[in-house]
């Protein structure tokens, strides 16, 4: 058995923007998956909003993701068959909300990510950057308090990547969201308040945003 994470002890305060950087296989995505409840730890504990998640059932994790967490993926993971606006509305609909307010909320999110003009397009008709904007809008549509971003610039060029990171920061700050970013891009990590460097499943160092980051 491979131990993906060991001795990882950290606390994030509401509204903080924290990035985790490190080489491939260092455990940063595993950490994010554990926080999202997509994977379960063999030992240790994750506490969300002061509540231990140790004995949560699958459905309780679903409810937490539905209400508290938004996730942005490297590969966008938009639903191919749905339009941009339907993808954004999806988390709300999964909660059973789909009235006029939902439509308004989707409209707002489209505007905030600058994609109103592409609302009827399907993922295959959008560029990588545009798809990631829709994915961000989808992650924030239901107003989560925790935004998890897994390599959000990994599948797009550096120019679009910078735009995506500033969009995440801008939306998170205005929405008061706590952001946990996982990336191997130092440029992307610049958007965070502080950066944890990871190696071989351990937290190696913490660097504040004001400090110049060096390659780990």
């Amino acid at each position, binding site marked *: 058995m491979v131990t993906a994470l060991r001795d990882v002890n950290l606390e994030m305060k509401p509204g903080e923007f924290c990035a985790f950087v490190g080489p491939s296989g260092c455990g940063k995505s595993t950490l994010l998956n554990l926080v999202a409840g997509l994977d379960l730890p063999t030992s240790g504990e994750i506490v969300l909003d002061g509540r231990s998640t140790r004995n949560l059932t699958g459905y309780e994790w*679903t409810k937490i993701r539905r209400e508290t967490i938004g996730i942005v993926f490297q590969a966008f993971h938009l639903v191919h068959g749905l339009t941009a606006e339907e993808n954004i*509305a999806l988390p709300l609909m999964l909660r059973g909300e789909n009235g006029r307010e939902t439509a308004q909320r989707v409209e707002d999110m489209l505007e905030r990510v600058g994609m109103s003009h592409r609302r009827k397009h399907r993922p295959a008709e959008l560029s990588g950057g545009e798809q990631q904007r829709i994915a961000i809008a989808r992650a924030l549509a239901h107003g989560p308090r925790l935004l998890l971003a897994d390599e959000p610039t990994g599948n797009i060029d550096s120019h679009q990547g910078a735009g995506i990171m500033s969009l995440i920061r801008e939306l998170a700050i205005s929405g008061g969201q706590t952001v946990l970013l996982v990336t191997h891009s130092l440029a992307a990590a610049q958007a965070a308040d502080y950066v944890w460097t990871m190696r071989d499943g351990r937290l190696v160092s913490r660097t504040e945003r004001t400090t110049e980051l060096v390659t780990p």
Partner: protein
Amino acid sequence: MPAFLRVLLLLLTSHVRQWPLRTVLTIVGVALGVSASVAVRTANVDVLRSFEQAVMTVAGPTTLEVSGGETGLDEQVITRIRRIAGVTSASPVILQTVVRMEGGQADQAVQVVGLDLLAEVDTRGFRLNQPAKDNQLLDMIQPQAVFLGAQLATDWNLSVDDELDLLIGTGRLTCRVAGILHNESDRTSSWERMAVMDIAAAQITFQMVGKVDRIDLVTDENMAVEDVAQTLRTVLPPHMTVERPANRTRQVEQMVRAFRLNLTILSWVGLLVGMFLIYNTMAFAVAQRRREIGIYRAIGMTQSRVAVLFLMEAGLFGCVGGIVGSAAGMALAQELVTLLSRTISDLYVPVGAGEGGLFRTGRFWSMMLEGIAIGCVVSMIGAVGPSVDASRTATVRALAPGDYEASRQLRTGMLAVMGVSLLVITGILSLPGPIGGVAVSGYAATLSLLAGLACLAPLCVTGWSRRRRYVGREGGVQGVMRGIAVEHASRSPGRNGVTVSALMVGLAIMIGVLVMVRSFRHTVELWVTDTVLADVVVAPSMWLRGTEIGDAGRSLPPTWLKVLSSIPDVAAVDSYRDVRIEVNGQRVAVVSRDLRLHAQWSRYLVRKGDSSEQLRRAAETRGLLVSEVLADRLGVEEGSTLEVMTPSGPVQFPIVAVFYDYSTDGGKLLMDRALYQSLWHDDLVTVFPVYVSPGSSLDRVRERITDQLRVATGGGLPPLVISNTELRKEILDIFDRTFLLTYVLEAIAVVIAMLGIVNTLVTSVLERRREFSTLRAIGGSAEQIRQLVLWEAAYLGMIGITLGLIGGGVLSLLLIKVINKQSFGWTIQMIVPIGAVIQAVVLAAIATLVAGYFPARWAARQPIIDGLREE
């Protein structure tokens, strides 16, 4: 092993390991299709082989048989036959069926052969195991002496000198086991399941003194058998037939040909549906391995070898499915053969239930090989399309990043045009008549109909997925789930079209056959209600066993007419006689009764005019009423004449009327009893229809009849005294039994179609693991994922059911108006059994959802993180 085969084996095993569930599903589908086909074929062969074996065993060295039909022959004929040049020996034969009585109850029916034992003991292929006695020869020919086949003696636990109670016709006879009958060689034969009596004893026992059923001839080896037969035909009276023993098997084969053909074709439906399943599996395999194919092509594999690779994979599935299916089919056939022989005995001629000796006769391996061949061929035909598609893979595009399949467009429009054209062709094919008595164009029309609808399926899959706006609609979570499901289904019109087609074929055949059978049943019910009007029918005690009981068990003495007529409250008694003869090569039932009496009390459903009037006219003009089936086959109608060979010579009969009849598919001639007796010299009666005076108690009359006739049977089983209601029920029971097999075969086809749905949904779920994981990651619950897959199943099911309903409707018309009419000649009044059709649709819908449930559950249980990792 050649290098290519080694590569092939390597790749095949890796693919099977990669997709074990799909492999199992596909093999099970093929196995089910093969099992239905093998079971029906085995049962069909077994039943006829059993008949043939019995015929040939009894025939022994016989080269020609002289027969006088059901009414038998005068034994004096033997003297004339022996004088004819080329006849080496002529032996009298009586062949009758008796029923063993066990504790006062009727048990098993057994064939009794009456032979000149003193002359023939060593010629027929059996030996008699008889205890050594002083008067051994005398013992052999005693009236109650019966020799039992070894197998029968073992089954019944009887040995020499034991007593045996037999029911012969209406009488009961206690016989003595004079010896045990063994086959001469070590092989098993029909003798072991028969009983033998001396001819003189048989004549007494079966009340045939001076008569025999048949005369078996051995002809001179130096003369052509056909020449001797020709001489015999010129010398003997024209109503006597001279034929080779094997001809009887051929006649029976001919008689049941349409019945067997329809059954066989129905058994192929499972294979047809299985073909869709294979297509589906292979199409998925090709799509899944597109990049792999690109690599094969890049490293030097030729186009044809790529195609062969996939064809061989399908062939392997077919081979394994064939092995499993053949074994299952032969096991199923053991049950089927009983049902089939009962049905053939009910409707046509008595046939045994087969010996089931597949292993002994070596047929096991030939059927196994046949099943494997069927499985392989069907699978490879199903895989032709995907294999050709694989061979045409554009190497560069397959190796490039991106979705190869997304860049390919199925020509749904083109397919739809083909579909419509095929439907037009269906209409055209339904017009021509049969070829050699077989509804060739009718079957072609059915195939064209199903192919046409299958071509329309991809268009339906894409066409119905019209975009709707989901955002902002109240309560739209279900709507959006449906939307995702529909959209996804419409993204693969080819694969899903095939699944929908499989369901469509299964359901269309289910509904088509259901409507046909229910319409037929309705028509028979109407016919029974309109024509079976006698209050009580007096019949031989074993009459309800149909032809199984033989001729002796199917007749009553004419003297009972007086007994019955004298019973108080009996208003009228008819004497009904039913014997089989040949008219223009067709086996026909000759029915005789008192037509004037029948005109007064009952009726026939005549095609033209009034029943009573036509019946009276037939009696007055010595004319015939002919059943619709026979009129069509012989090409005669009201007003024409028909020549019939009678024991009194050929007679030209005027045809007074044509009537609807559903009691036999061989056709029926009806004439007045007096006319029949004068020509056939036969006084026996098959049944007595009894009409009770109005207002009298039916139960009381029945009791009186039973009491009076119990005395007349001399200790035998009392005759059956059946009420009108019981008789009608019995007729409909026989009808339902006949079609029981049909339902079994349909069910197999539907199960295979369901496997197709499971197959498609498993494919869909495998392809969409990332999508499902995404939905879970953004807040979707496991329950919602389950619903999504179920919606997709429901969508495909809805299209399949809609097309199946359309196909079923048209198919029922083809079955009733074209195939049935051309194969059997019956006019069936079409009804649509709404309730039954709804049941079939609900069943298909439930089956679809059940088929969708397991992939849905599996999808919902997959770890989210695994799906998100997939690229």
